[in-house]
């Protein structure tokens, strides 16, 4: 059985009086690709922020290879983060730098490599995502899909064991979105990476995911393959998979039509 690489234990997150995550438990196995699925506002991105150590849990634990990320000292955390890559929804490229410098940044910060070696590695990563020749461009000079690819190249710069993706194909046209999803899948196969992707796009899930964690109202409702989840017959899962609107939404539409 594959080793558990990331484990979320009893995670509770509250913003004021609003409970965003209410006792989430989740284990990510090495080499798998897990899609965290759910409606907007169900706590997917909050869960991801905690898994990558951007937010500190007030209650519960995030274990990376069995060690609580919030109890690590600065150096330990850096070592863990070096083995993680993160593709942000907006790509989050540094606008003051070129695409090449964006990809090279983690290598410059965390390695003692010569500048010439860093340049070769940067070009390799850009080539991997289909952006060779774009290293001198600024983020403002390329399209949304290219920004996502550049963000992915930067996430891959340190050859991470785990790749976290926040809405990898959101805001892109179906063709470009499918391209990004297939690229993530091919990278996973080529480098045997573990992938955790937060999304609400069923098309992405079908391409990327081995398993799906379905979230609803701050909790994990079910975990399993797409077939397993479909077989459960749970109304929330059915509604999501069949793209059916909420009752409130139907009422609102009736009101608007009247």
């Amino acid at each position, binding site marked *: 059985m594959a080793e558990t690489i990331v484990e979320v234990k009893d995670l509770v997150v509250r913003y004021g009086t609003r409970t965003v995550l209410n006792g989430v438990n989740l284990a990510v196995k090495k080499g798998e690709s897990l899609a965290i699925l759910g409606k907007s506002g169900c706590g997917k991105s909050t869960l991801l922020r905690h898994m990558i150590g951007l937010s500190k849990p007030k209650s519960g634990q995030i274990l990376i290879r069995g060690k609580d990320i919030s109890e690590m000292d600065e150096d330990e955390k850096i070592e863990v*983060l070096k083995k993680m890559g993160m593709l942000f929804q907006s790509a*989050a*490229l*540094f606008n003051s730098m070129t695409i090449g410098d964006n990809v090279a*940044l983690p290598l410059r*910060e965390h390695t003692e490599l010569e500048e010439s070696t860093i340049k070769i590695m940067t070009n390799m990563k850009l080539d991997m995502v289909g952006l060779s020749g774009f290293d001198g461009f600024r983020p403002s000079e390329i399209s949304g899909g290219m920004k996502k690819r550049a963000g992915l190249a*930067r996430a891959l710069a340190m050859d991470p064991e785990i790749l976290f993706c926040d809405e990898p194909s959101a805001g892109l046209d179906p063709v470009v979105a499918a391209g990004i999803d297939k690229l993530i899948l091919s990278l996973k196969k080529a480098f045997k990476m573990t992938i955790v992707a937060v999304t609400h796009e069923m098309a992405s899930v079908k391409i990327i995911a081995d398993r799906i964690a379905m979230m609803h109202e701050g909790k994990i409702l079910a975990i399993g393959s797409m077939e397993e989840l479909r077989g459960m017959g749970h109304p929330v899962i059915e509604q999501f998979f069949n793209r059916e609107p909420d009752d409130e939404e139907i009422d609102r539409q009736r009101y608007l039509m009247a």
Partner: protein
Amino acid sequence: MEYVTKFFGRIGHVTLEFLAQVGRIADLTWQTAYWIAVAPFKGKGLRWKSTVEQMVRIGYESIPIVCLIAFFVGLIIAMQSAYQLQQFGATIYVADMTAVSITRELSPLLTAIVISGRSGSAITAEIGTMKVSEEIDALQTMGINPIQFLVVPKTLAMLVMLPTLTIMTNFVGIFGGYLISMATLDLTSARYIMQTMNALQFGDLAGSLVKSFFFALIISKIGAYEGFNVVGGAEGVGKSTTRSVVSSIFLIIVADVFFTALFFSTF
């Protein structure tokens, strides 16, 4: 009774929020000091290239505007002093008046206010925009400390360049006073210069530099703090930038009162 409870509740809330903000700024200052003074001894070097770039932006590119302002202030002080002193036939003291007021007060204060508006706002806008576009999060996920990466170079550059600009504006301001005196008063150049040198003491220049060092700390810390605390999108960046400039100028003047009382009070 309800109004009284609400009134004191509001005061309590505002006080707690103010204290929390002071705590967060102190924490930011402490972390910056760690990355400047302690971390280099643990093998985590300073970002010199970025620091020099910031020195150019904060210092070199500000030279024309701060010098122009200092020059005009020198002219104004000399003209105002001459207007009063000529009634007593004491126009020679225009040199003392200009040199002392420029060095002790106007040069560090006005330079800090200009730099606060020019560079403090730029620090907030840059960090704030990076926060809004998830660039700060991206740094953290790469294991790069945003304070080390963004705040330390700006703080170091500010700590070096603001006192440097203050020295420069001291000279330019005094030169402005000298020019107007030569043009309008019956004074010789040698006498004016001698009078200026006699009026100034080492403590005046030292006080000026101490003030500008702390003003630099205020501008860089408030600028960075407001940048990290941007909430919302472009509107949030705008609000934080305004708050950064207003708070910096207010704190600079408060600090100036403190240092003037410390160095030059008669009580």
